[in-house]
Structures are given as structure tokens and as C-alpha cells.
């Protein structure tokens, strides 16, 4: 039981947290702009690499570099929107999807050109003591920061969406674009705000992912499948659903290799990524609108 919590449940929660930050952005952006943003993973990578530069220049913990990552990724997101998505606002969705695929390739190449193609880590050879609680439960400092950080950000995003004028306008626009325009809501400003929120969450997810494993130019792209699986599971366009979906996917990926029967893992850890895909396919067959009735257009 203790092994289950220490080696499967807590890592699942960590993975779910990272997915949640990314999937919330994907879901918010889908609600406002009505297209699947395929460059979201690479926005995560970009945030992670900004932090890498900060770490190597100022020798700080990657977590202290998060503000710089947030700034970098949000500004980049706004710029990308202006150049690559805004001209296609009135076009068919597929045009925007393809455009975002192109953006993702450009971002990845940019990262490869700037930071190189090899694996990088934030801190070399530092093995921190795990924090022990209740006798046998252990959690690494990194993981604790990731989990607490994620839940704080989820709370902040919730406050933003539920209490602020701009956040409410975002939900209103996600509900009905035409009515938002008729009401006098400045829709371009709402779109910009959505990129800032989505870009910031992606940046933090990238730094968390980098600190949990290592950095490589494909790191964000590789998260795309679980991110979309989480967003679809929660009902696309519903940021709160995406959080639940992300936790389910993260947990399922980790727990799938727990030796439920005998001593062999139920599923070889090599198949972890397949789990997200499997859940997504099942969900699309059984309940295509997601757990929390997503949007249909």
C-alpha cells in the first residue's frame, strides 16, 4: 500500500498536475477560438527552455525562473496569435489547426537552434532528500512544489474566471461569440487575455515537466496526446473538466504499471503513453462530449 502511494499514486498526481496546467490552456483556447491548438506543447517547451537560460545565468532554482518563463511564453503566444492565427479568424477551423501545426514545427526548430538538440537538465547531480511524513510516506521536494504549485494556479485561474470582469467575459465569449459582440465585449481583448492565461499555464507546466524529468526540444510535443486526451475526457472547452481529465490520465498512466496481480507490472511502463490514447478512444466511443458535457458546434 505504501509502495502504491509513494511510487504510483504520488507520481500519478505529479503527472496529472503537469497535464492539468497544459490541458486547461488547450480547453480555454478551444472555447474562445474554436480550434485545437497543436502548438500548445511547444509553448510548454519554450517556457521550460526560458527557465533553463535563467538557471544557467543566475544559478537559481528553476522554480524561481517561472516568472520569466511566464512572461516569455505569454508574449510569444500573443505574437504568434497576431501573426499566425488572427489572419484566419474568419476561416474554417481546419486552417487554424494546420497553422498551429506549422507554428509547433517552427517553435521546435527555434528551440533546437537556440538551445541545441541534446538533453538538458536544470540541476546536475543534485539529489535532494525526500520529505518523509507519517512514517513511510515519502515525497520529493520537487514533487511537492509541483503539486502545490499546480493547485495554487488552478485556484488562481478559477478566481480569475469566476470573479473578474475579464474572466467572466472570457466565459461569456466561450458561451456565445455573437452575443458577446452584440453585448459590446471587446472580443480581441478577450482573445489576448486567453493567450496570456493559456501561455502562462503552459510555461509553468513546461518548467514543472523539465524539473521532474529533463529538457529536450520534443518534450512539449510529446505531451500533446495526453493533453488532448485530458481536455477531451473533461469535455473540450471546459477548463474545469480538463483538470479532472488530466488527473485521470496522469494517474492512469502511472498506476497502469502497478503490479496488481503478482509481482509483474500490470502493463509495462513502456506502454504508458498508450494509456492516454486508449482512454481517449474509449471516451470518444462511449461519451464523445466528455465527462462534463463539452461543447458541440
Amino acid at each position: 500500500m505504501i509502495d502504491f502511494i509513494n511510487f504510483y499514486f504520488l507520481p500519478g498526481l505529479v503527472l496529472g498536475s503537469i497535464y492539468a496546467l497544459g490541458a486547461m490552456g488547450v480547453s480555454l483556447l478551444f472555447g474562445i477560438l474554436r480550434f485545437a491548438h497543436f502548438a500548445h506543447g511547444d509553448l510548454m517547451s519554450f517556457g521550460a527552455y526560458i527557465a533553463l537560460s535563467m538557471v544557467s545565468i543566475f544559478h537559481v532554482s528553476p522554480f524561481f525562473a517561472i516568472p520569466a518563463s511566464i512572461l516569455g511564453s505569454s508574449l510569444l503566444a500573443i505574437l504568434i496569435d497576431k501573426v499566425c492565427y488572427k489572419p484566419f479568424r474568419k476561416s474554417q477551423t481546419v486552417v487554424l489547426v494546420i497553422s498551429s501545426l506549422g507554428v509547433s514545427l517552427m517553435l521546435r526548430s527555434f528551440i533546437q537552434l537556440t538551445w541545441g538538440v541534446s538533453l538538458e537538465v536544470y540541476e546536475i547531480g543534485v539529489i535532494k532528500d525526500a520529505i518523509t511524513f507519517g512514517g513511510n510516506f515519502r515525497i520529493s521536494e520537487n514533487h511537492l512544489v509541483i503539486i502545490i504549485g499546480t493547485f495554487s494556479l488552478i485556484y488562481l485561474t478559477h478566481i480569475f474566471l469566476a470573479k473578474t470582469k475579464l474572466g467572466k467575459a472570457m466565459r461569456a465569449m466561450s458561451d456565445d461569440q455573437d452575443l458577446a459582440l452584440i453585448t459590446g465585449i471587446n472580443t480581441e481583448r478577450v482573445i489576448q487575455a486567453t493567450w496570456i492565461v493559456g501561455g502562462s499555464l503552459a510555461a509553468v507546466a513546461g518548467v514543472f515537466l523539465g524539473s521532474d524529468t529533463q529538457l529536450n526540444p520534443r518534450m512539449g510535443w510529446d505531451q500533446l496526446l495526453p493533453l488532448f486526451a485530458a481536455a477531451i475526457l473533461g469535455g473540450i472547452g471546459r477548463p474545469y473538466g480538463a483538470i479532472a481529465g488530466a488527473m485521470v490520465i496522469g494517474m492512469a498512466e502511472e498506476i497502469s504499471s502497478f503490479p496488481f496481480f503478482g509481482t509483474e507490472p500490470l502493463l509495462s511502463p513502456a506502454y504508458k503513453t498508450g494509456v492516454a490514447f486508449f482512454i481517449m478512444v474509449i471516451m470518444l466511443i462511449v461519451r464523445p462530449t466528455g465527462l462534463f458535457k463539452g461543447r458541440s458546434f
Partner: protein
Amino acid sequence: MKKKIHKLVVENIVSGYGDMDILKGVSINISQEEIVVIIGPNGAGKSTLMKSIFGLIPIKEGNIYFDEEEITNLDTQSIVKKGISYVPQVKNIFPNLTVQENLEMGAYLRKDNYLETMNDVFKLYPDLVEKRNQIAGQLSGGQQQMVAIGRALMIQPEFILLDEPTAGLSPKMYNDTFESIQKIKTLGVGVIMVEQNAKRALQISDRGCVLVSGENKLTASGQSLLMNENITNLFLGGNE
């Protein structure tokens, strides 16, 4: 009380989608504290007229003036800022926002305190008070219509455009809606409405405008339209 009585003047506008003109020269005018009802058969261009005034469909010819200022083809946000609001026939609320949030969105462009206006809306529609924190999409059709009109009132408009506000309502809700529209008029707002139940609408209107195939056939006081045999035979199902 407002000092100046504002006027909205629509002069000979031609508009439509693409190459097709739906309105072929329509004129109406309205002052604050007036109700103008637009009646006419299906496809006459009633909804198109509303959307054209509100800047949602490009106007090819003709002009619209708010007092002396021309507002033809102004962007929607600027038209809302001028003090004109619009309630579409369908999809006129934010279904996943609460009643109160819907009203707050109506005041989006206001920089001042809008709580008093919100209280006025709740006075107009007391049913909404206890539902204020409920998700608007879960309300009954009639209550959703109240939210829709309430949202449009939040900007404190000089003019409000209502597109078939009673469509699909129960008889009781239907009466309540007509009553509330009369109250809106006394608040100093000019109401332009499209209504399928022309008879009832003309009774509360100051003027009626008959639209046929994108042209004004007749504009006259509500009473005289009700007395006009041609009109009653054509659109009002005859005199019983």
C-alpha cells in the same frame, strides 16, 4: 429624467447578404419613450432591419442617424456605446453564466457603478431576484427572455431593439413580457420591436411599420393600423 429626447432616424437603407438585397429602401424613425412595432410577413426583412441598424449587416445605401450624428455602418461596439442595444430572437443569453453575470456582461462597456441599473432590472423582473445566482441556461424560456432583455438594459440604452421577444412563450409570460416592454418605455427608452402577434403589439405601440418584401408599405399609428382593413386582413387574421 433625461433632458434631451434622443432620436434614431433610419433613411432609405438598402442592405442584405452578399449580392442579395433584403432591405430595398426602408425608413423608420423613433424617439425615446416611444414603442415602434415592425410587422410584416415572413421574409419581409424584419430581423434584417434590426441587424442592419445594429451594424451586424453592412448597409449599402441610405443612412442611419443618432440625433444628428451619422452611425451608418459603425462597428457594433461603438453603436452599443452610443446607447443602442439589441436582443436577438434566439441565442440571446449566455447559458453557462449566472443570471447576475449575464447582467454584468450587459454593463461591460460601462465604467461607472451599474448596481443601481441592476436593481432597476430586478424591479422590472422580480422573478429574477431569487434566481440571480442560478445558471441562466437552466431557467424557463420566459425567464431567459427576461435575462436577455435585462442584459440589454444594463448599458442604460436610449434605444432597445427587440426581435420577437415573445416567440414561444406561455400565455402568462407573454402578457408579462408585453407589460414589461411598456414599463421599459416609461423608463425613457425607445423600443423598436419585431412581433409576430401584430395585433397585441400594435395595441401598445405608438407607431407601427408594415414591411413587405424589404420595403415600407405603411407607417402609421398603432391604432390606425389596427383599424385599417387591408392590414387586418393581410397580417392580423381579419377582425373577429
